[in-house]
């Protein structure tokens, strides 16, 4: 099974940008096989026995960190979580010093989340091990895009040709950026729907159609991908209020009716119910795949850890 390393010829996974359709497809194929494993009673495999994975999180995270931890452990690796609150970073150590220190401990994989865009890449330049971007600032969150792609592919059988609307706070979203890249690479048609204040200038250049109205943005889409809007953006800086945002941009059944009848609802979590998504829609067992996304998350991270760590001698 040395094949996977050959079809994924990268040392790190820092972003979706730069990956080829074949690389993405093969990662998803591998992840698909782990979905089955995760549903068995005995979920443990030994393919990463002896490998060390450190989750280095400079930002709070529950699901991503847990997901990586589970993924590593199920493949037999030793996984250590480093929280920013307990690390020497709070004692004034620079990011590069942290990297050099960790590097001396002979890791195999470092999973990093950091509030600054580009910080993960900076760290990757200073270590010998593989680095996985667990989310850097408002730049990329590649494993989220991969798990979203796996969720879609399993439901729809394909990615190319699908029409996907990504709705909400695009400006501050690394999830949106990684998804825009991945969906474009795979030949999907991507729309973004948001008030202008929550869209970065020049977003069109990333290969999306821009909509400011859910009524046009959701028309005939196969996938509705909602984004989390942080509460602090809702009080007049970017958006006047929660109620106005929900009225115009929150996903409810009225707006969803414009999408295709079998359109899927996705959300990277954690959800703000009543802010960006109506509870009924979020919990709709027919349409919402939000819980499925979490399940796919573990499988995708197993696949990524596998291709980056297993091949190392």
């Amino acid at each position, binding site marked *: 099974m040395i094949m996977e390393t050959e079809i994924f010829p990268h040392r790190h996974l820092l972003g979706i940008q730069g990956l080829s359709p074949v690389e993405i497809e093969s990662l998803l194929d591998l992840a698909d096989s782990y979905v089955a494993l995760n549903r068995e009673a005995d979920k443990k495999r030994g393919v990463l026995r002896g490998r060390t994975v450190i989750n280095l999180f400079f930002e709070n995270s529950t699901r991503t960190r847990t997901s990586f931890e589970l993924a590593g452990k199920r493949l037999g690796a030793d996984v250590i979580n480093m929280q920013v609150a307990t690390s020497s970073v709070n004692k004034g150590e620079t990011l590069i010093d942290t990297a050099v220190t960790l590097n001396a401990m002979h890791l195999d994989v470092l999973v990093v989340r950091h509030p600054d865009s580009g910080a993960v890449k900076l760290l990757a330049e200073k270590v010998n091990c593989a680095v996985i971007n667990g989310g850097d600032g408002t730049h990329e969150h590649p494993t989220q895009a991969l798990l979203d792609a796996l969720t879609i592919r399993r439901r729809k059988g394909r990615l190319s040709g699908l029409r996907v609307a990504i709705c909400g706070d695009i400006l501050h979203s690394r999830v949106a950026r990684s998804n825009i890249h991945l969906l474009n690479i795979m030949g999907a048609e991507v729309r973004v729907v948001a*008030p*202008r*204040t929550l869209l970065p*200038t020049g977003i069109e250049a990333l290969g999306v159609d821009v909509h*400011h109205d859910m009524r046009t943005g959701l028309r005939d889409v196969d996938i509705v991908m909602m984004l989390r809007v942080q509460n602090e953006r809702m009080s*007049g800086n*970017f958006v*006047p209020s929660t109620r106005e945002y929900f009225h115009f941009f929150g996903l409810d059944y009225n707006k969803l009716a414009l999408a295709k009848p079998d359109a899927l609802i996705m959300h990277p979590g954690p959800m703000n119910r009543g802010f960006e998504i109506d509870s009924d829609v979020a919990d709709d067992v027919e349409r919402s795949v939000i819980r499925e996304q979490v399940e796919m998350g573990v499988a995708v991270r197993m696949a990524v850890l596998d291709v980056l760590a297993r091949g190392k001698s």
Partner: protein
Amino acid sequence: MALPIPGRVAYVNARLLDPATGHDGPGGVLAEGERIVDFGPGLFCPPSLPEGTERVDCGGHCLAPGLVDIRMQLREPGYEHKESVRGACWAAVNGGITAMVCLPNTLPVIDDVATLEFVARRARMIGLTKVYAYGAATKGLKGVEIAEMGLLAEVGAVGFTDGLNAIADALVMRRALSYAATFGLTIVQHPEDPALAAGGVMNEGEMAARLGLAGIPPCAESILLMRDLRLVELTGGRYHAAHVSTAEGIEAIRRAKDKGLPVTCDTAPFYFALNELAIGDYRTFAKLSPPLRGEADRQAVVEGLRSGLIDAIVSDHAPQDQDSKRRPFAQAEFGGVGLETLLAVTLDLYHDGHMSLLSALRLLTSGPAGLLGLDAGRLRKGGAADLVLFAPDRAWQVVADTLVSKSKNAPFDGRPVQGRILRTVVDGRTVFAVADGINRKRS
């Protein structure tokens, strides 16, 4: 309280003016109920009218779409000692105004749906001039957080502004323009840099120096305008500059328009018919915001109107009670009433040969209505029968105490003018009429 439905009325023997179509000639209007059913030259002096039609002989006077004023202050709710919705509507119909847009600087501020609906309901019940409202661009007009523009627009806000306050913070203006553009809405700015204007009470220059009053430099307008216009370029938001008063400000707008930016502007009669000399010996009725400027600036405003660069004329009606104006100049409040003098003073532009009657009228009808997308200011079959009948040459003198407006702070007090409103019709109902042009009564 339902208003009675008017019958069929023929306004005949008129000089019919419709700036939207450029029509100026003999004609008439046939209204049925609240709507116009027909208009044009065919309705000039018809020998017979269908049974049951009321005939209004216009006596050859000018019949035009009712005037549209897109900048006035209602003062209600919150400042009823200055003016009420009813009083403002009476003043407006005396001035031939059939639709007007109030600023959101009431108390409470029109920054939520409930306040806007209150104002709209009050005006609807009164049944005189139609009142539209701007929503606040920022919450509480504080210039910090953008207001609920989307929800306000859904219940009828026609644009967004902080009223007498400039949106000073560049980032807030950027976000306001950007957010408004999401819904295709317009931001209306009071273009005056508050830091440069702070403490100033009149135009900066020789006269202020002589009077010993703190001045507001003309560049307080142009600096803010230039910044805003650059932000319009960045955001693509629609922007309207209110009451421009300086040559350099107008020049900035000209450049923006030449670039094709979505920018428009208006001015008020104060700024083309008066200059700072009106302050004379500390006359507080002439204390306005922006301040009355020098003669060169006044001429630039006239030229801006003549050339079509300025898109509309507004009354900038700002009622102030006596206690607010009977004070030392520096302590008096800013603002002047203008609803009842809007047409007559604007007609100065026609009488002085700067433009045709039709062009002057356009600045008071289809011009302002078009800026905010109001269904007003033009004659249209099936459209509301909102009309004004006036005698463009008839002379009268503005006497503040005879104005129907509750507050009498008229900067044009004492001025001889030409152009008398004879009849004002809103939704087919005659809400103001005089037989001889003198009897101006408030009921």
